[in-house]
Each structure stands twice: as C-alpha cells, then as structure tokens.
C-alpha cells in the first residue's frame, strides 16, 4: 500500500490525539476557535441537516459557571466549545429519527473533526458529556429549541496523558461475526510503531 504524505499526517494526528484535561492559562483566540468550528462543519450530517449550532465560551465568569455545572470538566479551561443542536430544524428535516438519532451522531462527528483540527494546531481538547443540559441552557441563554449536546474543553495542554491501551483482540470480524481479522491494522497500531500491511487471518 502506498502511503501518501497526507495519509501519514492524518494517521499521526489520529493516533497522537489525547483527551487533555489540564491546560495552561494561555488564552485561545476567538478567531482561532471559530476557525476550528468552521472545520467542524465539514463533518457529515444525516440528511445534510447541518442542524448544529456552536457557542464559543471564553469569558472567564461564563467558563467558570459552565465548569461548575459540568462534572466532566476537571479544571476551568481557557475556552469551552458548546456544540448544540437545533432540534426544531433537525425534526423538520429528518423527523423523529433526525431529531433523536442523527443529532447525537452529527454532533460527535463535528466534535471529532474539531478535536483533530485543534490537535493539528497543538491545542488540547476533551469531549465532555457529563454536564447538566438545563443548567448550561440557562447560563448561555439558549432558545428553547436549542439543545446543548456536547462540550469541548479547549486550551494549550499543560499535561498530555499517555494513551490508554487499544483493544485489538476480537475487534474486527471479516465477512461474518466470529471470523476474526487477526492482524492489527495500521490504523490500530500505536503511534510510533512500525506500520504493517495487515492481512486476512483464519477464522475461528
């Protein structure tokens, strides 16, 4: 397999991104955060609904207030990106499926795109689902139809944790359940290890 330079860089970004929970006090410029959000909007959405809405929070009292109602955020980061969904729009375009099933996935795909883009700029991020949506709604003055679905802490990393081990055994099945693909694929290798080609293995 021929690896392109872009592919190598992308693999490196994917495998070296970590959930960063400790940040320096250095601010992150709003323009920079907005650029990351714009990149996030290139992520796919169910039925091309594009029903996300984003709130960039950098004002310190507001960051602290959101932090207080977000047990998943350890220390107040320099910035919090609040990924919201316009449920009214999602329902109009996709019905109940669009509102209930597509929006969490659309949010997650935008979040991962933003986190990789941030990592490429040496910014740390952490996706946080442990927060009180009603409290965040009130603190940010969100309209009724806007639901905060995911928070991203963003800042300059003070400490980058080591990678948790990746599961590999029994992870990939080939053609039918129980026929394992028994080599770790390049994408599952840890950063820095030699990349193999992977091959089809005998099923069990």
């Amino acid at each position: 397999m021929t690896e392109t330079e872009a592919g190598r860089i992308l693999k490196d970004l994917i495998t070296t991104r970590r959930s960063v929970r400790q940040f320096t006090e250095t601010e992150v410029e709003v323009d920079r955060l907005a650029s990351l959000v714009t990149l996030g909007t290139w992520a796919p959405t169910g039925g091309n609904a594009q029903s996300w809405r984003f709130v960039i929070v950098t004002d310190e009292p507001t960051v602290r207030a959101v932090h207080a109602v977000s047990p998943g955020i350890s220390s107040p980061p320099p910035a919090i990106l609040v990924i919201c969904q316009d449920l009214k729009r999602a329902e109009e375009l996709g019905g109940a499926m669009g509102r209930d099933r597509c929006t969490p996935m659309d949010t997650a795909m935008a979040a991962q795109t933003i986190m990789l883009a941030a990592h490429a700029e040496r910014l740390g991020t952490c996706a946080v689902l442990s927060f009180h949506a009603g409290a965040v709604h009130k603190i940010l003055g969100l309209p009724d139809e806007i639901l905060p679905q995911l928070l991203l802490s963003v800042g300059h990393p003070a400490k980058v944790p080591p990678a948790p081990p990746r599961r590999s055994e029994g992870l990939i099945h080939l053609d039918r359940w129980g026929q394992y693909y028994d080599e770790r694929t390049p994408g599952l290798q840890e950063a820095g290890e030699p990349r193999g080609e992977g091959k089809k293995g005998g099923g069990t």
Partner: protein
Amino acid sequence: MSYSDEKDLLELVAFMLVSSRNLMTEPARYGPLRLIEATRRFIEVLERRGIATAFLREIEASASEMPSRLMRSEQEFFSALDDLVETVSARLAAPAQ
C-alpha cells in the same frame, strides 16, 4: 461572607448537586470520580483563600491524576486510590505538631 466567596462556594455546591443528579443516569464508575473531583475542588477553594496546607495540595495533585488513571486501567485506579487513602490515614493518625 463576600459575594466572591459565596460564588466560589456556589460553584462547588453546583458541582456536587449536578453530579448527584447526573450520576443517576451515568456509569456507576463515574461516582468515585465525582467524589474525588469534589475533594479536589474543595482543596482548590481552600487554596484560593490561602488556607490549604502543603499536604492538602499534594492530595489535590494526586486527585487530579485519577480520571486518567481510571481511563487507562481500573487496577491502576484502585491501587492509586488505596495509596491516597493510606497517605491520608497516616496523616490522620500522626500526632499533632
């Protein structure tokens, strides 16, 4: 009590109340993490008032490592938490200076 003092404490109160509410639907193993985080945030409040001892600051530093430890391995998390409890217990048992 000043407005900023109350706000500082309110943030801790909000954290504990939201944790209590959210833990009803969150994974059980988040419970220990929230208690550790409450410990850490309480020490931070003391630090901002200049009344946290060096020992408490060490506890706070150890507590801040716990979420990453749990994400890596439950065994590592239990072991580090046992160490922390032993450290605090030894301090409790130490004669007054």
